[in-house]
Protein backbone atom coordinates (compact mmCIF):
# COMPACT_ATOMS: atom_id res chain seq x y z
CA UNK A 1 0.00 0.00 0.00
CA UNK A 2 1.20 3.46 -0.81
CA UNK A 3 1.53 5.62 2.23
CA UNK A 4 -0.27 8.58 0.73
CA UNK A 5 -4.03 8.95 0.84
CA UNK A 6 -5.70 9.89 -2.40
CA UNK A 7 -7.47 13.22 -2.29
CA UNK A 8 -10.30 14.47 -4.39
CA UNK A 9 -9.06 16.62 -7.23
CA UNK A 10 -11.48 19.20 -8.51
CA UNK A 11 -12.56 18.83 -12.09
CA UNK A 12 -11.73 21.93 -14.05
CA UNK A 13 -14.42 22.86 -16.55
CA UNK A 14 -13.14 24.15 -19.89
CA UNK A 15 -14.74 26.12 -22.69
CA UNK A 16 -14.36 24.65 -26.16
CA UNK A 17 -13.29 27.14 -28.85
CA UNK A 18 -16.76 27.49 -30.27
CA UNK A 19 -19.84 27.68 -28.18
CA UNK A 20 -21.96 24.62 -28.70
CA UNK A 21 -25.70 24.70 -29.21
CA UNK A 22 -26.22 22.17 -26.48
CA UNK A 23 -25.13 23.04 -23.00
CA UNK A 24 -22.59 20.33 -22.39
CA UNK A 25 -19.97 20.27 -19.72
CA UNK A 26 -16.40 19.76 -20.75
CA UNK A 27 -13.62 19.04 -18.28
CA UNK A 28 -9.87 19.28 -18.57
CA UNK A 29 -8.50 15.84 -17.71
CA UNK A 30 -5.67 15.64 -15.20
CA UNK A 31 -2.44 14.72 -16.92
CA UNK A 32 1.09 13.57 -16.29
CA UNK A 33 3.59 14.45 -18.98
CA UNK A 34 7.09 13.06 -18.92
CA UNK A 35 9.98 12.73 -21.24
CA UNK A 36 12.51 10.00 -21.81
CA UNK A 37 15.41 10.01 -24.22
CA UNK A 38 13.24 8.49 -26.93
CA UNK A 39 9.75 9.88 -26.39
CA UNK A 40 7.35 12.23 -24.69
CA UNK A 41 4.53 10.46 -22.84
CA UNK A 42 1.18 12.01 -21.93
CA UNK A 43 -1.04 10.25 -19.41
CA UNK A 44 -4.59 11.57 -19.08
CA UNK A 45 -7.39 10.49 -16.74
CA UNK A 46 -10.46 10.01 -18.90
CA UNK A 47 -12.77 7.67 -16.98
CA UNK A 48 -15.96 6.58 -18.67
CA UNK A 49 -14.99 6.82 -22.30
CA UNK A 50 -14.36 4.07 -24.84
CA UNK A 51 -11.45 4.12 -27.32
CA UNK A 52 -13.85 5.00 -30.17
CA UNK A 53 -14.93 8.18 -28.38
CA UNK A 54 -11.42 9.59 -28.15
CA UNK A 55 -10.04 11.95 -30.76
CA UNK A 56 -6.35 12.61 -30.73
CA UNK A 57 -4.60 14.97 -33.07
CA UNK A 58 -1.28 16.69 -33.46
CA UNK A 59 -1.42 19.70 -35.74
CA UNK A 60 1.23 22.35 -35.91
CA UNK A 61 2.75 21.20 -32.64
CA UNK A 62 -0.60 21.33 -30.83
CA UNK A 63 -1.67 18.07 -29.30
CA UNK A 64 -5.42 17.86 -28.75
CA UNK A 65 -7.03 15.25 -26.54
CA UNK A 66 -10.79 15.27 -26.94
CA UNK A 67 -13.14 12.60 -25.70
CA UNK A 68 -16.89 12.43 -26.00
CA UNK A 69 -18.52 10.88 -23.01
CA UNK A 70 -21.76 9.11 -23.74
CA UNK A 71 -24.52 10.31 -21.43
CA UNK A 72 -25.20 7.72 -18.75
CA UNK A 73 -28.06 5.36 -19.31
CA UNK A 74 -31.15 6.24 -17.39
CA UNK A 75 -30.43 4.82 -14.00
CA UNK A 76 -33.36 5.86 -11.90
CA UNK A 77 -33.59 8.72 -9.47
CA UNK A 78 -30.39 10.47 -8.51
CA UNK A 79 -30.22 10.55 -4.73
CA UNK A 80 -26.58 11.50 -4.20
CA UNK A 81 -24.42 13.46 -6.59
CA UNK A 82 -20.84 14.10 -5.61
CA UNK A 83 -19.34 14.34 -9.06
CA UNK A 84 -20.40 15.53 -12.47
CA UNK A 85 -19.67 13.85 -15.75
CA UNK A 86 -18.81 15.50 -19.02
CA UNK A 87 -16.67 15.41 -22.09
CA UNK A 88 -12.92 15.86 -21.93
CA UNK A 89 -10.81 18.39 -23.75
CA UNK A 90 -7.22 19.52 -23.33
CA UNK A 91 -4.60 20.98 -25.62
CA UNK A 92 -0.82 21.20 -25.32
CA UNK A 93 1.90 22.77 -27.34
CA UNK A 94 4.58 20.20 -27.92
CA UNK A 95 7.99 21.79 -28.10
CA UNK A 96 9.94 18.74 -29.21
CA UNK A 97 10.01 17.52 -32.79
CA UNK A 98 7.75 14.51 -32.89
CA UNK A 99 7.71 11.70 -35.40
CA UNK A 100 4.07 12.05 -36.42
CA UNK A 101 3.82 8.59 -37.97
CA UNK A 102 4.95 6.80 -34.84
CA UNK A 103 2.44 8.26 -32.36
CA UNK A 104 0.73 5.52 -30.40
CA UNK A 105 -2.06 5.64 -27.83
CA UNK A 106 -3.51 3.12 -25.43
CA UNK A 107 -6.47 3.26 -23.07
CA UNK A 108 -6.16 1.19 -19.90
CA UNK A 109 -8.54 1.47 -16.91
CA UNK A 110 -9.74 4.91 -17.93
CA UNK A 111 -6.23 6.31 -18.38
CA UNK A 112 -5.10 7.34 -21.84
CA UNK A 113 -1.41 6.96 -22.58
CA UNK A 114 -0.08 8.76 -25.63
CA UNK A 115 3.51 8.16 -26.67
CA UNK A 116 5.04 10.75 -28.93
CA UNK A 117 8.39 9.46 -30.22
CA UNK A 118 10.99 12.11 -30.80
CA UNK A 119 12.62 12.49 -34.16
CA UNK A 120 16.24 11.37 -33.98
CA UNK A 121 18.32 14.53 -34.08
CA UNK A 122 20.16 14.93 -37.36
CA UNK A 123 23.90 14.97 -37.13
CA UNK A 124 25.17 18.51 -37.24
CA UNK A 125 26.91 19.07 -40.49
CA UNK A 126 30.44 20.18 -40.19
CA UNK A 127 31.66 22.55 -42.80
CA UNK A 128 35.28 22.43 -43.40
CA UNK A 129 36.95 25.64 -44.25
CA UNK A 130 39.75 25.39 -46.64
CA UNK A 131 42.58 27.77 -46.59
CA UNK A 132 42.96 28.99 -50.08
Amino acid at each position, binding site marked *: *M*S*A*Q*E*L*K*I*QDKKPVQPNQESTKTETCFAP*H*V*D*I*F*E*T*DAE*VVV*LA*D*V*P*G*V*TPEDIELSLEENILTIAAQRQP*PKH*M*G*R*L*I*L*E*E*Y*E*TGHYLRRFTVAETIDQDQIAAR*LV*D*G*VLRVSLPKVAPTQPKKIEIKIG
Partner: protein
Amino acid sequence: MAFIRFVDRPTFRNPWAEFERIRQGLDELSRSYGEKGKNQPANVYPPLNMYEEPDRLLITAELPGVRVEDLSLSIDGETLNLQGKRDNHQSEPGISYHRREIESGSFSRAIGLPVKVDNERVAAKLNNGVLTITLMKASAVTPRQINVSAE
Protein backbone atom coordinates in the same frame (compact mmCIF):
# COMPACT_ATOMS: atom_id res chain seq x y z
CA MET B 1 -48.03 11.65 -4.25
CA ALA B 2 -49.71 12.77 -1.06
CA PHE B 3 -48.84 10.45 1.76
CA ILE B 4 -51.38 10.53 4.53
CA ARG B 5 -50.49 8.86 7.75
CA PHE B 6 -53.00 7.46 10.13
CA VAL B 7 -52.19 10.20 12.63
CA ASP B 8 -52.87 12.90 10.03
CA ARG B 9 -56.59 12.55 10.52
CA PRO B 10 -58.13 15.47 12.34
CA THR B 11 -57.99 14.78 16.01
CA PHE B 12 -60.81 16.33 17.95
CA ARG B 13 -60.31 17.45 21.49
CA ASN B 14 -56.70 16.43 21.41
CA PRO B 15 -54.65 18.86 23.45
CA TRP B 16 -51.49 17.65 21.70
CA ALA B 17 -52.78 18.27 18.20
CA GLU B 18 -50.94 21.55 17.95
CA PHE B 19 -47.64 19.91 18.94
CA GLU B 20 -48.24 17.18 16.39
CA ARG B 21 -48.73 19.85 13.75
CA ILE B 22 -45.46 21.55 14.70
CA ARG B 23 -43.61 18.23 14.62
CA GLN B 24 -44.95 17.53 11.15
CA GLY B 25 -43.82 20.93 10.03
CA LEU B 26 -40.33 20.21 11.35
CA ASP B 27 -40.33 16.82 9.59
CA GLU B 28 -41.24 18.57 6.37
CA LEU B 29 -38.44 21.06 6.89
CA SER B 30 -35.82 18.40 7.52
CA ARG B 31 -37.00 16.46 4.48
CA SER B 32 -36.62 19.44 2.18
CA TYR B 33 -33.22 20.13 3.73
CA GLY B 34 -32.21 16.58 2.86
CA GLU B 35 -32.83 17.34 -0.80
CA LYS B 36 -29.99 19.83 -0.63
CA GLY B 37 -27.59 16.93 -0.14
CA LYS B 38 -27.56 16.62 -3.89
CA ASN B 39 -24.61 18.01 -5.76
CA GLN B 40 -22.54 18.50 -2.68
CA PRO B 41 -18.84 17.89 -3.04
CA ALA B 42 -17.57 14.91 -1.13
CA ASN B 43 -14.61 15.21 1.16
CA VAL B 44 -13.40 11.62 0.94
CA TYR B 45 -12.06 9.99 -2.21
CA PRO B 46 -13.71 8.71 -4.34
CA PRO B 47 -16.73 10.92 -5.02
CA LEU B 48 -19.83 8.79 -5.51
CA ASN B 49 -23.10 9.14 -7.32
CA MET B 50 -26.06 7.12 -6.16
CA TYR B 51 -29.20 6.29 -8.09
CA GLU B 52 -32.33 4.64 -6.83
CA GLU B 53 -34.56 2.36 -8.84
CA PRO B 54 -37.68 0.68 -7.44
CA ASP B 55 -35.83 -2.57 -6.76
CA ARG B 56 -32.17 -1.58 -6.57
CA LEU B 57 -29.54 1.02 -5.74
CA LEU B 58 -26.76 1.91 -8.14
CA ILE B 59 -23.55 3.52 -6.96
CA THR B 60 -21.00 4.83 -9.43
CA ALA B 61 -17.49 6.17 -8.92
CA GLU B 62 -14.77 7.35 -11.27
CA LEU B 63 -11.59 5.46 -10.47
CA PRO B 64 -9.16 6.02 -13.32
CA GLY B 65 -5.98 3.99 -13.13
CA VAL B 66 -7.24 1.65 -10.42
CA ARG B 67 -6.85 -1.98 -11.40
CA VAL B 68 -9.51 -4.54 -10.54
CA GLU B 69 -7.09 -6.49 -8.35
CA ASP B 70 -6.30 -3.36 -6.31
CA LEU B 71 -9.92 -2.68 -5.47
CA SER B 72 -11.81 -4.29 -2.62
CA LEU B 73 -15.44 -3.96 -1.70
CA SER B 74 -17.27 -5.25 1.31
CA ILE B 75 -20.72 -4.85 2.74
CA ASP B 76 -21.47 -4.94 6.42
CA GLY B 77 -25.10 -4.51 7.31
CA GLU B 78 -26.05 -1.17 5.81
CA THR B 79 -22.50 0.07 5.31
CA LEU B 80 -20.61 -0.33 2.09
CA ASN B 81 -16.84 -0.23 2.31
CA LEU B 82 -14.68 0.68 -0.63
CA GLN B 83 -10.91 0.35 -0.53
CA GLY B 84 -8.17 0.45 -3.07
CA LYS B 85 -5.04 2.06 -4.35
CA ARG B 86 -3.65 3.67 -7.40
CA ASP B 87 -0.03 3.28 -8.35
CA ASN B 88 1.02 5.73 -11.00
CA HIS B 89 4.78 5.49 -10.50
CA GLN B 90 6.70 5.05 -13.70
CA SER B 91 9.29 2.34 -13.74
CA GLU B 92 11.32 3.63 -16.66
CA PRO B 93 14.64 5.09 -15.60
CA GLY B 94 15.84 8.53 -16.53
CA ILE B 95 12.52 10.25 -17.01
CA SER B 96 11.91 13.90 -16.42
CA TYR B 97 8.48 15.24 -15.65
CA HIS B 98 6.95 18.21 -17.42
CA ARG B 99 3.67 18.04 -15.53
CA ARG B 100 2.51 15.93 -12.61
CA GLU B 101 -1.17 16.17 -11.80
CA ILE B 102 -2.06 12.54 -11.26
CA GLU B 103 -1.55 11.29 -7.74
CA SER B 104 -0.73 7.87 -6.41
CA GLY B 105 -2.02 6.57 -3.13
CA SER B 106 -4.62 4.55 -1.34
CA PHE B 107 -8.22 5.27 -0.54
CA SER B 108 -10.81 3.95 1.84
CA ARG B 109 -14.39 5.02 2.10
CA ALA B 110 -17.42 3.74 3.94
CA ILE B 111 -20.89 4.83 2.98
CA GLY B 112 -24.15 4.27 4.79
CA LEU B 113 -26.87 2.98 2.51
CA PRO B 114 -30.27 4.69 2.64
CA VAL B 115 -32.22 1.43 2.49
CA LYS B 116 -31.73 -2.18 3.53
CA VAL B 117 -30.12 -4.24 0.79
CA ASP B 118 -29.81 -7.93 0.12
CA ASN B 119 -26.18 -8.64 1.04
CA GLU B 120 -26.13 -11.75 -1.13
CA ARG B 121 -27.06 -9.93 -4.31
CA VAL B 122 -24.40 -7.29 -4.81
CA ALA B 123 -22.71 -6.89 -8.17
CA ALA B 124 -19.83 -4.59 -9.09
CA LYS B 125 -18.01 -3.96 -12.32
CA LEU B 126 -15.12 -1.74 -13.29
CA ASN B 127 -15.29 -0.58 -16.87
CA ASN B 128 -13.00 2.07 -18.40
CA GLY B 129 -12.21 3.50 -15.00
CA VAL B 130 -15.82 3.73 -13.83
CA LEU B 131 -17.01 1.50 -11.01
CA THR B 132 -20.68 0.58 -10.94
CA ILE B 133 -22.07 -1.21 -7.89
CA THR B 134 -25.56 -2.69 -8.08
CA LEU B 135 -27.26 -3.45 -4.78
CA MET B 136 -30.62 -5.15 -4.78
CA LYS B 137 -32.96 -3.86 -2.12
CA ALA B 138 -34.06 -6.27 0.55
CA SER B 139 -37.40 -7.77 -0.34
CA ALA B 140 -39.05 -6.10 2.67
CA VAL B 141 -38.44 -2.61 1.26
CA THR B 142 -39.11 -3.38 -2.42
CA PRO B 143 -42.42 -1.82 -3.36
CA ARG B 144 -44.96 -4.41 -4.36
CA GLN B 145 -47.79 -3.89 -6.77
CA ILE B 146 -51.08 -4.91 -5.24
CA ASN B 147 -53.67 -6.18 -7.63
CA VAL B 148 -57.16 -4.96 -7.11
CA SER B 149 -59.76 -7.51 -7.97
CA ALA B 150 -63.38 -6.70 -8.63
CA GLU B 151 -66.00 -8.91 -7.09
